């Protein structure tokens, strides 16, 4: 029998409905599971047992009074430590925010509360979401539950590893250049980066403002839709939040009306792709072909430029956004500093890790007056080209399919001293972020070494429902979501 902690949120919700388990019991089971495995996985930075159990108790009371707040009422969720939760720490994986307590809730956190979902604790991440392995966290290194010597991906590696290892059924993460999709692929679970503007970012400390998005992690596509339903929607407090109609994701998901044309971009299948990844993704394409989807070869001509464009724009925006961590108002302040200017220099020296410093410096350089046009403006123009590629492609297809990452998870320590090499692993995800489009990753196989492989589906802006429905038809015909790591 499937362990309870490996059940999907949908299944757990049904068990709660049948009263075969209470939310308090369920929450205790997950807390127990975290106690059993997290010393090895190290996904959680902190856990608020007391608050979680209080919320679970409140959920059970609502259930017995017939006042349920929605289908996920009483289900625990893990929070990437970059999403504000009033009264909880918000470290962003950085020493500079080590003692920072959120004075308010992010909009998504409010929405979770309104839906009765129980945030269990805070999940590890690369410092300020900069990284693809979660090794840049100032606190701990999270391990891949499938093989503890490997990274879980990043930057939302804690979120992905926690869902993968059965510590929580759902988690929230953020994705700036692949930080939800890539760890989802590395850990063999499902993760969705939403369209830019679909989910409010109020309460999400900014990294790269023009691409940051919050999105869900789950065991399966249905759960992704359930959690998305709760967090999506317009918010006055985020000026980039779009006022669009939110579809009923769960209903559409299993309906028959689904898009039929899938584009395969040749640039995403060139020699840099690992053999096992290529085979798994190609068999996914074969599946769709056999099931009546029209497979269309397309070209996204400027793919090769996505990484340089992304790392210019992202570092430029980050260097500006991270200027607020100054040691004066709410961050770590160096005790060595003797004057006000010194506070900036020394607090930032002590508070930021090397990767953050590297990116702030690169961003400062590309924005500096001598180099602004040569790097930053040029990158913004090539970004336009990348967006046009997608626009053109979507004239002929509904969904684009590619690998989520060129390789499976790599070993801890393998790339940490080679930042550019680490950036290269983002090749399949950054272009989508630059174009602001939605994309998800679902498991589509395992490598010979037993590590999960993800396939990425990219959709038109605000067409998450199409992605979910295409993903669902693959998921239900395969058993990848029913394989669990042995911890």
């Amino acid at each position, binding site marked *: 029998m499937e362990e309870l902690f490996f059940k999907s949120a949908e299944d757990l919700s049904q068990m709660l409905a049948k009263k075969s388990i209470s939310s308090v019991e369920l929450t205790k089971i997950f807390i127990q599971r975290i106690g059993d495995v997290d010393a090895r996985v190290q996904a959680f930075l902190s856990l608020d047992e007391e608050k979680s159990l209080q919320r679970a108790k409140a959920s059970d009371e609502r259930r017995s009074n017939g006042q349920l707040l929605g289908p996920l009422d009483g289900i625990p969720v893990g929070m990437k430590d970059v999403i504000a939760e009033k009264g909880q720490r918000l470290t962003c994986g950085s020493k500079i925010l080590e003692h920072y307590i959120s004075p308010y809730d992010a909009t998504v956190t409010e929405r979770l509360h309104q839906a009765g979902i129980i945030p269990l604790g805070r999940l590890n991440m690369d410092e300020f979401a900069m990284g693809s392995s979660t090794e840049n966290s100032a606190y701990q290194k999270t391990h891949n539950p499938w093989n503890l010597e490997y990274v879980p991906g990043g930057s939302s590696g804690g979120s992905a590893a926690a869902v993968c290892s059965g510590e929580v059924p759902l988690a929230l993460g953020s994705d700036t250049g692949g930080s939800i999709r890539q760890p989802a692929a590395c850990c063999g679970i499902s993760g969705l980066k939403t369209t830019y503007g679909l989910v409010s970012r109020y309460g999400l400390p900014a990294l790269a403002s023009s691409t940051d998005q919050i999105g869900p992690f789950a065991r399966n596509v249905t759960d992704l839709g359930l959690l998305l339903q709760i967090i999506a929607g317009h918010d006055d407090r985020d000026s980039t939040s779009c006022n669009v109609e939110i579809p009923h994701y769960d209903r559409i998901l299993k309906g028959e009306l689904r898009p039929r044309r899938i584009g395969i971009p040749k640039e995403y299948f060139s*020699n840099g792709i690992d053999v096992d990844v290529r085979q798994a993704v190609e068999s996914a394409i074969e599946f769709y072909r056999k099931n009546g989807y029209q497979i269309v070869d397309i070209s996204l001509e400027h793919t090769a430029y996505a990484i340089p464009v992304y790392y210019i724009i992202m570092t430029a925006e980050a260097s500006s956004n991270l200027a607020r961590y100054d040691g004066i108002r709410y961050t770590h302040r160096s005790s060595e500093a003797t004057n006000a200017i010194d506070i900036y220099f020394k607090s930032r020296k002590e508070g930021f890790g090397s990767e953050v410093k590297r990116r702030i410096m690169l961003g400062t*350089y590309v924005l500096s007056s001598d180099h602004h046009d040569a790097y930053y403006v040029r990158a913004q*123009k090539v970004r336009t080209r990348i967006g046009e590629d997608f626009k053109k492609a979507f004239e002929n297809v509904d969904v684009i399919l590619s690998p989520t990452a060129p390789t499976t998870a790599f070993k801890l320590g393998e790339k940490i001293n080679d930042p550019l090499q680490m950036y290269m692993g983002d090749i399949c995800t950054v272009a989508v972020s630059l*174009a602001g489009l939605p994309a998800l990753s679902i498991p589509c196989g395992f490598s010979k070494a037993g590590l999960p492989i993800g396939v990425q589906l990219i959709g038109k802006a605000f067409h998450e429902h199409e992605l979910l429905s295409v993903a669902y038809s693959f998921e239900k015909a395969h058993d990848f979501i029913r394989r669990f790591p042995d911890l």
Partner: protein
Amino acid sequence: MYIQESFHIYGRAFGGANGKRRRLNGNGIGGNNRVRGEGGETKAKNCFFELNFSYLFRPLPRMETQNLTFCIYCAVFNENMTPEHIDIDHIAMLCRIALTDEERKTIPGQLDTMLAYMRQLEEVDIQDVEPTLHALEISNVLRADEPGENFSVESALMNAPKRENNQIIVPRIVE
């Protein structure tokens, strides 16, 4: 020195001054073509290949090597020939970060490498292209200027590193 198989090479005109755009065949992920540059003249002396063109070494996503400074303009064979050296102290000053001794040693080379890599954008035709600031078309969002709910002084100051009488304390700034 060492060119690994995992390096894929393509050429490009040095300096890009002639503005000629050259399509690379199959320039997808780690495009694996060795294309000779056209129309450029080398400024890279001591080039290992002694070619008339400069070459950009572009590593594949799956690269086995670590700590290998690959380089544009053949400079991999001569560390001092990277085209652009970041003035690390100046940049650190601009962004108000003091570096550790270790970072002062490692970061400049890493940044040079990244900038060299980023210069491949020079081969994209961007004539008459508008820059993208936001992925989606979002115009200014305005709201009525009405006072609303706000933080209490206590919650606004709860994270201040040093405070007194509802104020944040900093060292004396004006003598």
